[in-house]
């Protein structure tokens, strides 16, 4: 399945053609897949004051803004320890290493996710083992996960995608029954809670990604590890700074501390931390706004029979829905994406290829057809614009365009 290449903003070189279509110049306004420009502008006085704090201190990474952000994020999530790092991917690698993953050990992950959910396992020295997902949550199916456990399995790592969490009750039971370490790839799960406990601290630890389009987004790469385990936090804190223990954060001279572990440079930039601190101040409002926009989408799209699935918006079980991505499933997804691009509406395909069919995992020997739910999701899913800067009128325009597409195709 080739990706649609609808709207991207992390890509090397020239933008790929949008399936041969360019936005119709007659469309006066464009609805990008993502923008935070208005939010950023509104928060600018606060961001500027944090930048001043950073510049007065004169430390531009691993400095006072990172320290303050870690504390504030800890208070907001309830995680006892927050370790700020360079990206969500690095956070996963450092977390797996900090949990004591032994070389060659197996980590059970879902077949449907962003690449980092499995590449982090390889980078931490382990071997990913895939399991199919629950088509209702897009998260790893607990029974499939259980079937994937072998004598070599050390960790099980569910991923919370888009708007709801994996079944942490069942996965927690599986982990304790089989004596596995439970780690959460909660990169997308800012604000998601299971019976009130924030994603990432239900097992040994979890991560957050602050990739710009995330619910809590920086204006560059950044991520964090969340954990309630002191030792994991200490180890991850050292691994991000060349394996050096001690108070390296906001403290220059400790760059001479002994290297106790073969570590990385995964320090977070203070510019990013300054932006994140400002955005954290309105995160509750942003999440509520996303919920409101999602409800507006569902009201309209639930009426269209061609839309096979919308995420719904209602509280279903112990995990409140928190909308990072508004994902629908349709047949002829790529045609719809092209049509919307033509109407000036950006969309994204999360994710066009399941992990077990990625070329980089060919060595694991999986075949097409092994994980039907993951493969179906990859073939049908389309993410619509969803971010606090979006207006209800924009949502209406997107829904009208989708309706027009299906009307046109019915004729």
């Amino acid at each position, binding site marked *: 399945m080739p990706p649609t290449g609808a709207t991207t903003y992390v890509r090397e070189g020239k933008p790929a053609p949008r399936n041969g279509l360019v936005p119709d110049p007659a469309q006066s306004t464009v609805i990008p897949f993502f923008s935070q420009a208005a939010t950023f502008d509104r928060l600018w006085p606060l961001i500027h004051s944090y930048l001043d704090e950073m510049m007065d201190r004169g430390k531009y990474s691993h400095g006072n803004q990172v320290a303050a952000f870690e504390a504030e994020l800890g208070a907001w999530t309830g995680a006892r320890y927050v370790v700020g790092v360079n990206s969500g*991917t690095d956070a996963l690698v450092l977390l797996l290493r900090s949990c004591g993953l032994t070389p060659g050990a197996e980590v059970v992950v879902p077949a449907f996710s962003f690449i980092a959910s499995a*590449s982090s396992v390889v980078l931490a020295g382990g071997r990913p083992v895939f399991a199919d997902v629950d088509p209702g949550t897009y998260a790893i199916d607990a029974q499939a996960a259980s079937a994937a456990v072998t004598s070599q399995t050390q960790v099980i790592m569910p991923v919370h995608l888009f708007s709801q969490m994996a079944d942490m009750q069942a996965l927690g039971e599986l982990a304790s029954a089989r004596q596995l370490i439970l780690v959460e790839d909660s990169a997308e799960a800012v604000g998601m809670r299971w019976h009130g406990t924030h994603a990432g601290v239900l097992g040994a630890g979890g991560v957050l990604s602050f990739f710009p389009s995330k619910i809590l987004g920086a204006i560059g790469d950044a991520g964090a590890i969340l954990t309630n385990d002191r030792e994991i936090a200490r180890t991850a804190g050292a691994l991000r700074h060349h394996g050096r223990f001690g108070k390296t954060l906001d403290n220059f001279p400790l760059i001479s501390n002994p290297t106790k572990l073969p570590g990385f440079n995964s320090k977070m930039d203070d510019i990013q931390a300054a932006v994140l601190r400002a955005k954290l101040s309105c995160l509750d409002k942003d999440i509520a706004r996303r919920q409101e926009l999602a409800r507006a989408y569902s009201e309209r799209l639930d009426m269209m029979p061609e839309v096979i699935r919308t995420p719904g918006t209602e509280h279903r079980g112990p995990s409140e829905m928190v909308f990072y991505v508004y994902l629908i499933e349709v047949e002829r997804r790529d045609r719809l994406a092209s049509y919307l691009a033509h109407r000036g509406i950006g969309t994204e395909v999360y994710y066009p290829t399941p992990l077990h069919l990625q070329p980089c995992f060919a060595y694991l020997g999986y075949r097409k057809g092994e994980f039907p739910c993951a493969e179906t999701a990859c073939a049908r899913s389309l993410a619509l614009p969803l971010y606090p800067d979006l207006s209800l009128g924009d949502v209406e325009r997107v829904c009208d365009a989708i309706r027009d597409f299906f009307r046109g195709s019915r004729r």
Partner: protein
Amino acid sequence: MIPFFPPDLFESDRQALVDIVYSVGTGREQRFILGHYTEQLEGALSKWLGGTQVVACSSGTAGLGLILRAIGIGAGDEVIVPAFGCAPLASAVVNVGARPVFADVDPRTLVLDPDEVEALITPRTRALMPAHVFSVMADMPKMREIAELHRLRLVEDSAVAQGAALDGHPAGRWGDAGVFSFVQVKTFGTAGEGGAVVTDDPDLASRIRMLRNHGQDPDHRFVHHEVGYNSRFDEVLAAFQLHRLPGLENRLERRAKIAEYYRARFCPLEDRGIIAPPPGRNGRFYYVYSLIAQQREGLKRHLGRCGVASHVYYPMPLPYQPAFETLHSSGQTWPNAEHASRCTLAIPVYPHLSDGQVERIADAVCSFRQGRR
């Protein structure tokens, strides 16, 4: 106190930085990572280096890892690295599954000793990774010769050596690939973390471009050919580096001038147990001005009393670091690296030191009297 790590590195660029953050944050494109600024920065650096491939990445450390992966270093391989230097020299090798083999350094220049390197080559050796240290480039012509003779890859840890050239050939371009680090204290430091890989090999550059962005196909998003990293470059920092690049030559020149002054003042101290770094411009870059002092701790205290902060970069040779001590046989020793770890002391050399401050620092060093040994 004259600080060793000055907090006012970017004082004259404060407004520029604030403006860049605002314009990227509110920009119409909403592009934040590996965008046009990054591309422009890569192009500008390439031009500055006389035309080569430049791949911006998240740090110098990450750059070393990307190179090692891209040239195929992995389990069972050995990479010869200096015993005296920064942790990434060894951890980058360990983190791709290979084994660092530590070679001793020259006692004066503190860079890899070519004879030590040759003695450590085994059938498992796949690459040499010399590093430029403080203000001195490694003996790259000799390293190249050894690499060619033994058919080894040559990775140049030029993280600290932006702007240096040896015999007219720039640092970073002597091996299969080299790296630069842009962490704030470096000569081309930035307002955050960043780095770049430099290589004359376009295929290697393409592979590194892919590896820095999750092994992703350059044209098809979410198609991943290799298990890659997230080691990308942020637009805010790329724009800031473009803003700072035109002043770089002057800042490098100012560092070299300060070093010249220090050299003239410190030459007579050799009899009193303080050795200044080797002089000159060829193969030099003056990122860190590090003395070799027989009574280092005494000198450090003395400087502190005179209001001059100093810094010990590598108080322990790499093979003795807890992370790496199990990677070599206990019989091996590195006397020069040990001596360097005991005796080197870096004093401030950053370009915005005033002439008066530079004199004060030199006076402080010159007024040190060794105690009886």
